[in-house]
């Protein structure tokens, strides 16, 4: 998970309180990745343990301001310059579901059709969110990413349908 590096990136803009980090994290990611304040403090204490951030004195309200260290900046730069590996991403239930439907010789068409409509609804919701957040570039790019992913899924579903329509297995079931 990139919470650790995400917090470092926010701290590279200047010292922050924990609650500020949480709010800024959510603003930057378009509220697509909600954090709870517990996650923020747990992550901050690990960053502190690893000398990537240093806490200031508690103020009278008991709040602590955190500052990024040199090692913290190096860690953030390493993160920015390292590509994300495909294998780090979770397996996709839809892919497994379709593969299993084909293996089990179920009729794949209704599975594809139901998914296509559901994915289009997701795309419509994301597009509405994007129109509502037109002024925020970080949020817009996060939503664009989700839009492109949903669109890739849509294209893949079309592809599955075409492949299955042409396959001997389908022609056999329809006979």
């Amino acid at each position, binding site marked *: 998970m990139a919470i650790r590096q995400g917090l470092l990136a926010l701290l590279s803009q200047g010292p922050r309180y924990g609650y500020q980090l949480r709010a800024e994290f959510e603003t930057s990611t378009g509220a697509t990745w909600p954090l709870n304040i517990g996650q923020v403090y747990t992550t901050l204490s690990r960053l502190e343990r690893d000398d990537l951030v240093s806490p200031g004195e508690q103020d009278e309200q008991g709040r602590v301001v955190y500052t990024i260290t040199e090692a913290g900046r190096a860690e953030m730069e390493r993160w920015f310059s390292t590509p994300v590996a495909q294998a780090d991403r979770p397996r996709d*239930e*839809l892919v497994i579901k379709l593969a299993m439907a084909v293996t089990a010789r179920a009729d794949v068409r209704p599975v594809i*059709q*139901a*998914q*296509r*409509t*559901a*994915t*289009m*609804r997701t*795309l*419509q919701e*994301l*597009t509405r969110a994007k*129109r509502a957040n037109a002024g925020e570039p970080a949020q817009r790019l996060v939503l*664009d990413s989700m*839009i*492109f992913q*949903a*669109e890739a899924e*849509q*294209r893949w579903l*079309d592809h599955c349908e*075409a492949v299955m329509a042409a396959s001997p297995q389908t022609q056999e079931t329809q006979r």
Partner: protein
Amino acid sequence: MSFDPVVRLADVTRVHGDGPQAVSALRGVSLDVAAGELVAVMGPSGSGKSTLLNLAGGLDLPTSGSVVIEGTPLVSLKAADLAGLRRRHVGYVFQDLNLIPSLTAAENVMLPRELDGIRAKQARRDALEVLTEVGLAEVADRFPDEISGGQRQRVAIARALVGERRLLLADEPTGALDTPTGDDILQLLRARCDVGAAVLLVTHEPRYAAWADRVVFLRDGEIADSTAVPLKSAR
């Protein structure tokens, strides 16, 4: 305010050719597009998308079933009246933009108004108004080959919008534009819907279809599914 749809297709069938060679391009399709609504049509090639758009705009007539534009059933119209109704009520944006290269952007947009018998001065005022709306006031007097692809696309949309036409039919209006420019085009169509136009959009790009209020999936000439009725996600 009227809740009648701007265009209504009821149980529309379109058969091309006859006898053993007959091909059903559309089979029993019913679809309403209301004022303020953006409807996207998706489907593989040959699924009947373009036939549907041509029928909705009165460019083609159904073999059976009815098409009603702004309350007027098309089937009863004489050819000249049909042409007049199309000019007054329907705007078209096709993939091939059909801008006339020897006319400026403003002159291209004026053309349908002049065909309507509007005087040139008024037609130019109307054209400049709609060009301003699509953000092109500054290129009004340039020729199509002097402006960018995205700008040409917007000129074609302005031409489709000029006058009081409420029904806008768009066939792949984002063509080969990059995504931010394509988004601008959809933003424009969306804005027209929000002030009361009805837009029927054919696209093969899910990210543009997602701007619609409703997405209809065509398959073999029939509506296979639509995002109109919410389903529970089973994932």
